[in-house]
């Protein structure tokens, strides 16, 4: 995977548990261009193991001098977000991937309905830059637990107050997906990013109301759930690798030096799909990529977030 080196130029705490990092090219050059909705994967070389997490870029896509990301310290972090909060300082140098966009704005949409929950606001921060520049018609609905969790709400108020509606859950303000989706003009595309429950509720409401599938866009980066240790048997390379309980299969493969492909590392893109040859237990699928039929077949697995409850899992790798 080709990597960029960036240096942390500044760090700000923007809301409870959310730290905002401004990154510049470590060699003083311009950073690659990106489009709103893109993310980067940050490599975090913690002692003993390496974490790689995806974070949406929230800075203006026109600004080639900086990238900005916001990291929510996950209460049940396996270590990635804690590393970003505790180990990364101004001046730290980080390896990041080139930006990749799995959450792009539709170019044929007549209206864009942006639905953010909590830290899910980040990809929309960059998309709003694109929409403002292109003159796109949009509205943003942003829900958060309370004022102190409302990252960037004040910045949004200043920039796009006409188009943004905020929902403070602590004041009992909730989005009504059914009413919101029913009110949209033809040609609307909806984009959801936030907690799993929110995204799933939005997507299933849109489907039930007859929204065509390609008008519904969502992004969630999942952290790999913890589980029990098991053994990977790789049929081609004839290796046996132990996956620890707090490690993903992908991380275990990488730690063992196996060149396994990956991109988003959050169960969204499908790049890391592997073929399952056999297991003495059951697969635990956690991704958003495989179809229900694929998951039921037991032949495919996304090692970035999925695992197995078993003694061994044999892969065609």
């Amino acid at each position, binding site marked *: 995977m080709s990597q960029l080196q960036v240096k942390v130029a500044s760090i700000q705490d923007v809301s409870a548990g959310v730290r905002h990092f401004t990154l510049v090219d470590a060699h003083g050059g311009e950073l690659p261009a990106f489009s709103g909705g893109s993310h980067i994967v940050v490599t975090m070389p913690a002692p003993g193991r390496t974490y790689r997490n995806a974070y949406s870029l929230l800075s203006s896509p026109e600004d080639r001098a900086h990238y900005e990301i916001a990291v929510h310290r996950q209460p049940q972090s396996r270590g990635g977000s804690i590393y970003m909060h505790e180990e990364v300082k101004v001046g730290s140098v980080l390896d990041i991937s080139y930006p990749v966009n799995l959450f792009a704005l539709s170019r*044929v*949409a*007549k*209206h864009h309905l942006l639905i953010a929950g909590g830290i899910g606001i980040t990809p929309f921060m960059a998309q709003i830059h694109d929409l403002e520049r292109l003159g796109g018609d949009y509205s943003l609905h942003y829900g958060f637990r309370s004022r102190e969790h409302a990252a960037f709400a004040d910045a949004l108020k200043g920039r796009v107050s006409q188009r943004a509606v905020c929902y403070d859950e602590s004041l009992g303000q909730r989005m009504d997906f059914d009413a919101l*989706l*029913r*009110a*949209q*003009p*033809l*040609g*609307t595309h909806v984009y959801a990013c936030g907690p799993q429950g929110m995204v799933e509720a939005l997507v299933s409401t849109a*489907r*039930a*109301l*007859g*929204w*065509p599938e*390609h*008008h519904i866009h969502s992004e969630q980066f999942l952290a790999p759930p913890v589980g029990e240790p098991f053994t990977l048997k790789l049929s081609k390379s004839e290796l046996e690798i132990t996956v620890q309980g707090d490690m993903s299969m992908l991380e275990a493969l990488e730690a063992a030096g196996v060149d396994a492909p990956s991109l988003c590392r959050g169960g969204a893109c499908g790049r890391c799909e592997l073929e399952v040859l056999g297991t003495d237990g059951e697969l635990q699928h956690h991704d958003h990529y495989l179809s229900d039929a694929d998951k039921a077949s037991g032949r495919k697995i996304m090692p970035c977030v999925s695992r197995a409850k078993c003694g061994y899992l044999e892969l065609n790798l």
Partner: protein
Amino acid sequence: MERGYWIRSKPVYTALLWNDKATAHAVLAAGDGGLAVLKLFQQALPEQPITVFYSPAGADKDYLPALQAAVDADLRVFATTAELLAAWADYLATARMGLRIYTAGTEKFMWDVTDAAADFGILNQDVMKELTGSLARSVYCVHCKSLTHEVTSNIATCSGCGRQLFVRDHFSRRMGAYMGLMVDAENPGEVPQIEEIYP
């Protein structure tokens, strides 16, 4: 046509079926498309509001009395397809997401309906289509860019430049027309036998 040979852009039209995940339904038909609407109303009806736009223009039979009896919905009748399409554009301007669209009639009519919907961000794959009455094609001349409508033969005279055009299966969704190429470009005057193959 040769077996196994297929041009992917050639649309495949099926029978209309209600899509019960919706907030509203719009059914647009012209001429013999009236029969497709009657078939649609013999299926279990969806719960959401239905609006039917129908123009009898071009029909072999008078479907209107049967439609008025069978259509338990808002039935709007137009003397010409042009009037129907104007009303359709007005309807689209105030419609909301969740509208399901069904159309039946000649290929030209269905793609005119689809084209109007495309102005409101609706992709052609989300307009359900049932071809009725005729296989007649609209043909786009790749030489002079003119459209020739209601072509029923393998070779047609271009309405713009008068060339003899071979009618291909290569279909443009944007124009609702098949590609037409000069058939005697290599050997002027050598035009193969003209047959009616799209009656």
